[in-house]
């Protein structure tokens, strides 16, 4: 029982990080119907900004997190302006290839300057609590709490503010919503800023839990978070969060009860079965097609 609870805590922690990254994918998809494959690399840049903040600027946790999130927001808006906006009218796949290119560029740029993996020194005091065999660390608690807070904040922004309403309007019908006065370019920029800063926050917290960073760390995580976003129903914020937690839980539980070698195999097969049951993801809405 304790074992299950322990693994449950691990799953919550990993799931929170996947959820944050998946949120970034989903927001951009909702607004632009585009999959930003560079998002995993935004996550990696977030981890590196954390490193810069910790080692060179000697900041403490909250300022470093703010630095990461703001830095990523700027990066996201810049990439959108330079690489994605010219392709607004182009076929969707061109955007996908461009995003792959942006991702490769970011990875290799950082690699060119620094090929060695880096270590992030301890930010957070190493406090562990033990509840009768169940160990919880301050770090784990922090990650889960901060992630949930960020997700609630995002939900608030999207559901209760004018900006959020504008974002939802653009995701509903990008081409015609300008007629009623919604500034699509600005809304897209804000969406990118929000989504990228969430990805950066995920990178920040990931690098706190696993303090070794290298330029390729975002690749696999990015693809996995993409799967999480789609399984939850891409375009839907609740879907991204749920998808992230489902993927994190599946991975941890499969490794806990089955030989760890078949973890990937079982987890992804289960995901395919889930998709076959709900072909549009859990919260996804089937798109009506006019014939």
């Amino acid at each position, binding site marked *: 029982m304790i074992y299950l609870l322990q693994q449950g805590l691990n799953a919550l922690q990993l799931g929170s990080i996947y959820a944050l990254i998946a949120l970034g994918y989903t927001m951009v998809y909702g607004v632009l119907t585009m999959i930003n494959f560079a998002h995993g690399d935004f996550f990696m840049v977030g981890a590196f900004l954390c490193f810069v903040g910790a080692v060179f600027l000697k900041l403490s946790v909250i300022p470093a997190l703010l630095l990461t999130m703001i830095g990523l927001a700027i990066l996201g808006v810049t990439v959108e302006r330079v690489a994605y906006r010219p392709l607004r009218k182009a076929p969707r796949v061109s955007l996908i290839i461009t995003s792959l290119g942006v991702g490769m560029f970011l990875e290799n740029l950082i690699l060119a300057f620094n090929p060695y993996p880096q270590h992030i020194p301890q930010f957070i005091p190493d406090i562990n609590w033990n509840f009768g065999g169940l160990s919880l660390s301050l770090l784990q608690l922090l990650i889960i709490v901060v992630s949930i807070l960020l997700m609630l904040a995002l939900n608030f922004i999207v559901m209760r503010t004018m900006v959020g309403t504008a974002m939802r309007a653009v995701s509903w019908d990008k081409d015609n919503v300008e007629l009623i006065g919604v500034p699509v370019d600005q809304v897209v920029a804000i969406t990118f800023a929000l989504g990228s800063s969430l990805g950066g926050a995920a990178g920040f917290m990931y690098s706190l839990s696993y303090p*070794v960073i*290298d330029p390729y760390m975002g690749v696999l995580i990015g693809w996995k978070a993409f799967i999480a976003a789609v399984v939850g129903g891409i375009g839907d914020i609740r879907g991204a969060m749920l998808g992230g937690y489902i993927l994190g839980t599946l991975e941890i539980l499969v490794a806990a009860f089955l030989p760890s070698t078949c973890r990937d195999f079982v987890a992804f097969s289960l995901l395919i079965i889930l998709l076959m049951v709900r072909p549009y993801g859990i919260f996804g809405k089937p798109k009506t097609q006019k014939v």
Partner: protein
Amino acid sequence: MNKQIGLSVLAVAAMIFFPGCGNNSGSPTVKIGLIAEISGQIPAVGASCRNAALLSVKQINDAGGIDLGGKKYLIQLLVEDSASKADQAAVVTQKLITQDNVLAIIGPNSSGNALPASEIAEQSKTVLITPWSTNPKTTINAKTGTPKKYVFRACFTDIFEGRVMGKFCHDTLKAQKAAVLFDVATEVFKSQAELFRKSFEAAGGKVVGFETYTTGDKDFSSQLTKIRNAGPDVIFSPSYYTDVSLQVQQARRLGIKVPFVGSDGWSTPELIKMCGKDCEGFYFCNHYSADSENPATRDFVAAYKAAYGTTPDDVAALTWDAFGLLWQALAKSGSIDDREMLRQRLSEGQSYKGVTGSIVFLANSGDPVKGAVIMRIKDGKFVWSSDSQP
């Protein structure tokens, strides 16, 4: 429009297919090729390898070149990137051998690249020395099972390392039960894990946990929880140093108090920075010890530090020794372009006293007879603990 496109593609193709027009004339040089994993998944390995190679060549060239039969020749080092991909490794090997006409090749380091490169080198009858590939199959012809004639390595093999660590854990650390945690997708660590298990059980111990993860995983909590429940005396983790620090941290958080033991993947000094106090007292197997009293080692470490600012890791040390082997054999062969003569001199069995120990190749084998070093992490430094001779 189509014509323009066609012409530009043709132009690009022509640039590749008709090169070599600008061959530098001037005094003849000895051309050596280096294949390193500069971009791709393991850039740290490629960077260390390249640094050590450039340093070694620079030392020779600063002294006026290598002395072959009374005349001095400068060394021209051609560095190619294998991007840690087997097909790239194969094509750059071809390029170096057939287009650039190098005398010998040093590299690649990772076995996944070294294997295809060694096939091509063997078929083209060119000497290839891999500094770091510990996979036994690199120097063996896969079809016939006999050793390759032109492929050598500067390090010991996984077989030796697994044996050493198995015996060490049982005999020296007096562990009865061991658990293993390793990356199933990286063949080096997988073979080290399996060979450790064989050797530990042959010595009389029992392996109570054999957990795996995949390259890039950072979360080992479920595996470590399982290991904790199995109650081992020691945990063998033949992993890359970046993973080790995470494993130790997470193990501590889960309340695991038993020591970890490692393989040569641990050997970068960065490990101490990452792992800190948690790793105090752990042992691992290494190719060389940076604080050894050996004068060759001291000179190398000092020169590397002066040039690059960090202590050299084992990849750098092995690359340095691979080049040292090459210079020794080259000096004896006396020719700047005779590959066969170079091969003969290399396999003649003359011992080379390198930074990583004394290296000698027995007849018909590309695997050197050399010992391993057991290191201990003490007071925040790597300290030599004992030597393990074959």
